[in-house]
């Protein structure tokens, strides 16, 4: 598999949200606006790339039996870093995302890539894989966030474009499920040629 393919597969072909259905909790929980989706996506990308790097570097010294707990500790350390950094520099976004930042630890996407890719491949490939998958995740979250924001509050990235009431239900919980359902169906329609 060439380098470009490793990087680009996360966007459409193996998109973590639309195709692999990993990391659904943050996908639905934080995407009330495009900015929140993007912030969450980039935070996850950082954790994913860093944990892929470390896992790829230490893969030969970790005994097979304790690899899962070791991965969890590596991931949790980077999540704590992200949590503290975001609290210090973007407190508004941090309080919006709330509980979902510490919950990056149990995002199946991060664990899945560490186990399925980084623990078997070279450092360079693992970085590319983490970056591609993370940005694919960020892309999906931003898309869903934008759809919900446009329909729900008639604005995009915080800029109001019409003076009227949106469909409030898209900002509330049910809108997350419905929005994702139709985005997945649309994605299948586009890729299924």
């Amino acid at each position, binding site marked *: 598999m060439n380098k470009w393919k490793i990087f680009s597969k996360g966007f459409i072909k193996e998109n973590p949200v639309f195709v692999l259905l990993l990391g659904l*909790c943050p996908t639905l929980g934080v995407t009330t606006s495009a900015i929140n989706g993007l912030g969450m996506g980039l935070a996850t990308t950082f954790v994913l790339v860093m944990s892929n790097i470390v896992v790829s570097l230490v893969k030969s010294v970790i005994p097979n039996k304790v690899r899962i707990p070791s991965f969890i500790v590596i991931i949790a350390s980077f999540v704590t870093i992200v949590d503290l950094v975001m609290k210090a520099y973007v407190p508004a976004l941090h309080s919006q995302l709330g509980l979902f930042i510490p919950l990056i630890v149990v995002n199946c996407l991060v664990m899945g890539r560490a186990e399925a890719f980084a623990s078997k491949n070279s450092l360079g490939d693992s970085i590319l894989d983490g970056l591609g998958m993370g940005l694919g995740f960020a892309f999906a979250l931003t898309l869903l966030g934008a759809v919900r924001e446009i329909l729900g509050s008639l604005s995009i990235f915080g800029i109001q474009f019409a003076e009227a009431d949106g469909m409030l239900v898209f900002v509330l*919980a049910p809108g997350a499920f419905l929005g994702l359902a139709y985005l997945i169906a649309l994605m299948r329609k586009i890729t*299924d040629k």
Partner: protein
Amino acid sequence: MEYIVIIISAVFVNNIVLAQFLGLCPFVGVSSKVKTATGMSGAVLFVMFIATVITWLIQNYILLPFKIEYMQTIAFILVISSLVQMVEIILKKISPSLFQALGVFLPLITTNCAILGVTLLTVQNDFKLLEAVFFAIGHAGGFALALIIFAGIREHLDLINLPKGMRGVPAALVVAGILSLAFMGFAGLV
């Protein structure tokens, strides 16, 4: 009285799956049959109860006195993952029948964000131990209710002829959206 309020609020008003979006992986993953959904709910109830008690003790007797609250995420996830392993071993020894019923679901629980989510929420809300216990039981009950209703609907969903793109997960998510709308009716109850 306040314990009843905590339970009703956790089960209906702030339903962990349909209003707070925690534990969606098992919600979508193991909800194709009512039987597996019941097993998963049992396992979640069991682990959530023990995990909340133990992390509450760790938070209040270790992390807070030593002022190392920033270790919360790491400490809690380690406790939960080792707890799941321990529960598995103990159940196998003392109650093989319960182990048979819950066994396959236990390893899946480590990556269930509902457990870590509830333990973190308990700490954020500054609950006393007994309140925390009711909070955990209420949330596990809410998870069970949502999961079993959802599984019941999905069993029938398989029989319907849907457009190709909507089959499977998208249709299930639409159902979840409608369920979530229904649960919004409980808002303002407490």
